């Protein structure tokens, strides 16, 4: 066990955990932010995606010690009120079904748009193919990403 300092959504947390524990469980069960989901534990489904210094990463496969003091953003940190362009587009396109994968999908889409303001289909496929939506909302996710890119100020 070791004390690890985490910076999540601009807030600092100090937790006493196994340094090898994945960031996912630190976020969910020690910090208490439940929007980031566990889906597979092996970086195959993307449900656990958060931003690490602005880059999308799989929190299920990152030891918590490796991300100490780095800037981590979770779905809760994207906006307080669904005002992020990606969240707005997700609502306009009525994307979610069960919704369980959507935090991860949204974090990936937000990271894509921050690098590439107008992605084409191939860019979107490349950025999103690490994510599984078992409900199959892919056509809507793609539409929402395009909409968000148009809505961007």
């Amino acid at each position: 066990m070791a004390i690890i300092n985490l910076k999540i959504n601009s807030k600092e947390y100090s937790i006493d955990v196994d340094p090898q524990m994945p960031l996912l469980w630190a976020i969910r069960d020690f910090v208490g932010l439940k929007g980031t989901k566990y889906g597979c534990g092996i970086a195959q489904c993307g449900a656990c995606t958060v931003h690490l210094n602005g880059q999308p990463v799989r929190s299920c496969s990152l030891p918590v010690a490796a991300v100490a003091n780095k800037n981590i953003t979770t779905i809760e940190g994207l906006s307080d009120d669904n005002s992020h362009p990606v969240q707005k587009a997700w609502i306009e396109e009525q994307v979610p079904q069960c919704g369980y994968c959507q935090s991860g999908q949204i974090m990936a889409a937000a990271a894509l748009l921050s690098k590439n303001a107008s992605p084409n289909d191939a860019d979107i496929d490349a950025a999103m193919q690490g994510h599984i939506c078992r409900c199959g909302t892919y056509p809507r996710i793609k539409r929402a990403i395009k909409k968000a890119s148009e809505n961007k100020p």
Partner: protein
Amino acid sequence: MVSRRQFIKNTGKASFALWLGATSNGFANAAFITYAPSNFTPFVKIEKNGKITIFNTKPEMGQGTFQSVPALIAEELEVSLDAITIVQTSGEKQFGGGQAAGGSSSIRGNYDAYRKIGAAAKEMLIKAASVKWGIGIESCYAENGSVHSKLSKEHLSYGDLIEEASKLEVPKEPKLKNKSDFKIIGKSIQRPDVPLKVSGKAEYGIDVEVPNMVYATVFRSPVIGGTLKSFDADATLKIPGVIKVVEAKTTVGKYQYSGVAVIAKSYWSALQGRKVLKVEWETNGYENFNLSDYENKLRNLSKETGVLDKNIGNVESVKTEPGNSVESFYETPMVAHHTLEPMNCIAHVNGEMLTIWTSTQVPSAITGSGPNDLHSQIGMKPENITLHSKFIGGGFGRRLYTDYVIEAVNIAKQIEQPVKVIWSREDTTQHSAVRPMTFSQLKGGFSKEGELISFQHKVISPSYFDSVGPNFDKTKVDAIMIEGIGEQAYQIPNIKTSYVYADFHVPVAAWRSVTSSTVAFAHECFIDELAHKVKKDPLDFRLQMLDKDSDTKRVLLKLKEVSNWDKPLPKGKGRGVAQWEFFAGLCAHVVEVSVTKDNTIKIDKVYAVIDLGEVVNPDNVKNQIEGSIVMALTAAIKTGITIENGKIKQSNFHDNPMIRMHETPEIEVHILADGGKIKGVGEPGLPPFAPALANAIFSITGKRIKKMPFDLKLS
């Protein structure tokens, strides 16, 4: 304090009841109105301050009931969806045994009944206003949560009327609105759960935290059917955070299993403890089980006559000329549900009291207010069970089963604190009941004139009912396993459908669209074979066998139009069609394909037509059909579940892959909602997809696919 129950007025068989809610100050200020046909009891609650709560008895797993069920009530009650609070019920006794979602039944099974709840309340509120104003009810109308007078500008909000209204008799047959007056039903209104699901605020079972909670992971027998011999927890108990190691029993249908639970302060600690846990299993001979042997057994069993299902005319009397008959054999795999939220459950046993927090499709079964009750399996009294039912991170049939709840309760019995049991993805893949495979033997015979005069479909498979219950009668047909094959609308003079039972030791489950997801593949591919045998267009061949007024004909005609079926495709492209009607509903697809430069089938477009009778939220229906097609595509072309040396070979998404965005075809959905039988939404989009795709591939390659999963890469 007066019990609410004392105020129930029973008004005959329909058990319409009006409940006066007694609050802490003893003053009745709320009315609970229920309408309870045989199996469900939704609620409306109107408070004096005007707050309106609609209780949704159908768990939300992505299919949209969080809106669609309250929408039916709100429509008739004349309140907008923005003006109501929706509360998900949790198997409370007063809501009855119908708190369950499955079989695409939520709307199709209750369309009028839910509306009557709202309509009855509205009539009572109008009556109360008319008495207050001393005018006739015909001079009053309800709009936007208020009753208005047609004679003056007077109006009263529902909250102001509730005290008077709650003293009135509940109308047994309230008048329902005309479809043309609908303000909510039939409109694509944004769903109230969506903002919660894009902000991370929607709470699923796995997200719940209760004070003093501990975590558990369970080591279960890798060989299916293995039993626990012994375990050594010495090393486990030395892992920091590990609290206790206990046996964890559960029940899956007729099967009883035992695992070993590692209970710890965190899930991560529990997992570390499990890694060093030593367990010995008795594998009971099941370690020699291989799926490939079992598939051979199914092939051999196809020689058996089996048990007769449907017998129209007399297929045995039909004599066809040599060359006028077709025979075929189709095979399908087992598949996993793969809900993205793995199985999980929090249970807290406090003396005789049990509290459960989980995502489930069957709240009623957990609290004991419905059939297949949990309490008998865990030795608790139903009145002592409290459930907190959460948003479901995918159901697809998996969460119709309570094995993960029973297991959590049995662990919770051995520790004082509430315990959250989380199944890893690997646990969920390898220890869940699976969709069974079905093998199909088909025969068709034509007259000299080329008319299809006989049709036979025999299903060979393990039995669903044998798996879920202890007393399956093998001399009878398992109705789940031959689902739909005797009920297609094709008018063929001689039809025989039958079932051959195959013994199996692996628990099997309903999987979204149940057996239709496999038998439709065989059935509708074979219909295509028959069409080609007599050199007919596959869509016209189907249409010619359908009665003018059949729903299936209506769907196929619409599909023919929207898919431009009669317009030839450019060279190098092909298309296929399939339809399926079964208990859940009716849908048909046309799939267009081409072959890429690297000799792989590309799905260019899917056209879908679903027949609903009535539609609540068209946009949500489209979302469901799009998703159904993606799920059906995974089942058609991706690895299924296989068993080697008694163990499920697949474990996670790397070896049991799902369709991803870049593999998703363009999908165009059309909805028929022109009255008639009301049909379901959640499942009907699946069954026709695989056969439509396989038929499309045949049209371009000339190669008939008879086994799922199949490869889009051509050899």
